[in-house]
């Protein structure tokens, strides 16, 4: 009897198939497929270039590739140094935000909010134009080349974001940790350095990596203020080839591709770490 009702119940018959959860993710072999597709696509282009005076787009791109790669490595150097600088300053600012001294706390909060809410490009201009081109200290002249100033400019928003990450991680820890440590007669410095911060590192890592990937993508902004990184070099390469319009797509795609290859693994790793460190609720 029960079975009978089950069969004729219209609602049960209409039950939709469960939505499959096969989210597409890139695997290493996709890179091989991509290379094969690129080569296949370049074959007709190579044949099409019957005019011997005009090299095929693929040949030109290959010819410029070493220079563009060098530019890209420069981008990565800028990103790593800006990240290091920003993290150091940001960690200090973040600890300032949880300081017991209200003046320090307020100052750190205002600085963080100010640099977090300003556009990256404006901060980059800020550093480019307001820092001197050389710095005289005790009769010693330290030159500040453009790329160094760009690094400072990019480190400013990183600093503010790291500060928020630190503060967020400390606040997200259950207050029981503080109370338990205090009841064991740890001093505040000890609690912070031995109990709270070690636990925070795990929580801070995914957002910190995310920030690094954003920073890497922001290094191209330096091309606007005249640092010769990958975007500037691409523009120069295109100009050197006489501004051929059929070169635009391959060259810009190549730059997109470089950044994608660098940032996508970071993004994947971030997601994996986030899942690994996720607190089960």
């Amino acid at each position, binding site marked *: 009897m029960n079975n009978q009702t089950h069969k004729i119940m219209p*609602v049960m018959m*209409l*039950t*939709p*198939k469960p*939505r*499959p959860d*096969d*989210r*597409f*993710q*890139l695997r290493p072999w996709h890179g091989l497929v991509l290379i094969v597709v690129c080569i296949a696509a370049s074959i007709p282009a190579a044949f099409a270039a019957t005019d011997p005076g005009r090299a095929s787009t693929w040949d030109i791109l290959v010819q410029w590739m070493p220079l563009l790669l060098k530019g890209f490595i420069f981008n990565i150097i800028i990103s790593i140094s800006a990240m290091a600088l920003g993290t150091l300053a940001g960690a200090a600012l973040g600890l300032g935000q949880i300081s017991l001294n209200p003046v320090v706390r307020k100052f750190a909060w205002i600085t963080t909010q*100010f640099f977090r*809410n*300003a*556009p*990256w*490009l*404006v*901060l980059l*201009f*800020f550093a480019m*134009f*307001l820092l001197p081109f050389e710095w005289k200290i005790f009769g010693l002249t330290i030159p500040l080349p453009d790329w160094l100033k760009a690094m400072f400019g990019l480190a400013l928003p990183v600093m503010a974001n790291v500060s928020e990450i630190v503060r967020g991680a400390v606040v997200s820890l259950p207050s029981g940790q503080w109370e338990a440590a205090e009841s064991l007669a740890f001093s505040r410095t000890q609690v912070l350095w031995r109990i709270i911060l070690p636990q925070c590192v795990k929580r801070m890592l995914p957002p910190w990596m995310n920030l690094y*990937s954003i920073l*890497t*993508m*922001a*290094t*191209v*902004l330096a*091309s*606007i203020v005249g640092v010769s990184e990958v*975007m500037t070099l691409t523009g120069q390469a295109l100009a050197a080839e006489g501004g051929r*319009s059929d070169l*635009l*797509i391959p060259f*810009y*795609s190549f*730059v*997109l591709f470089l*950044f*994608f290859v660098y*940032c*996508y693994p970071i*993004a994947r790793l971030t997601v994996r770490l986030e899942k690994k460190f996720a607190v089960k609720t």
Partner: protein
Amino acid sequence: MEAFYDWFRVLYETTGINLPFLYDSYDRDRMFFGFFMTIKLSLVCLFFSIIIGIIGAWLQNSPFKWTRRFMNGYIQLFRNTPPLVQLYFFYFAISSLLPTVSNGYGGQQPILGGFAWAAISLSFFAGAFNVEIFRSGIEAVPESTIEAAEALGFSRLTIYTHITMPLAIRVALPALNNNLVNLVKTTTLAYAIAVPEMLYEANQIWSDNVNVTEMMFFLLLVYFGLVGVLVWGMNSWERKLKLPGFGA
């Protein structure tokens, strides 16, 4: 009002703090123009990126495997490449493929100008983030709620518009808030393709008057204000939408 403007001229003469966009009518017009251009660009991009986010999140839950794959490809591509290169790609590369139109003076001009390309490129960029944000919002809607709607005979589309979306928006709002703030800040990139927005106009003014410091601080303050207004608006909207017993 004139007296107010003149006060800044006096300020310049006495202290050297040069704010020409306040006392000089030509610079004032330029600055206003740039300010409204930034707002216009932000609003257009906000609108289209949200539309892209909603449609994308819907497509990402589609029963067709290739639709989902295509959406994920789009998201990963736009999230993991620099927005500036995307902008150049659209403005220089894609634009070179499109036909040109006569501009009435016997010359040819591209069919879409800098503003249009900036709007398209930034919308796609922010849209890629919005898709993920809306998707996580949709995933937070309890399965039993959707099953209940299915039992009541709602179609896939009506479930999406009447059940899932209103609940998902509430979950997604804080993240959306963040992304829209980022979008407003990213509109400065349009400077690179000579869209006359605020940074561009400020650059023009400091080139004419050599007052980089003042213009820089002014710019930072204006963006601070713009972002503040947006955050305040989104937060009050978030409070208004809050359902008792749903969400944090």
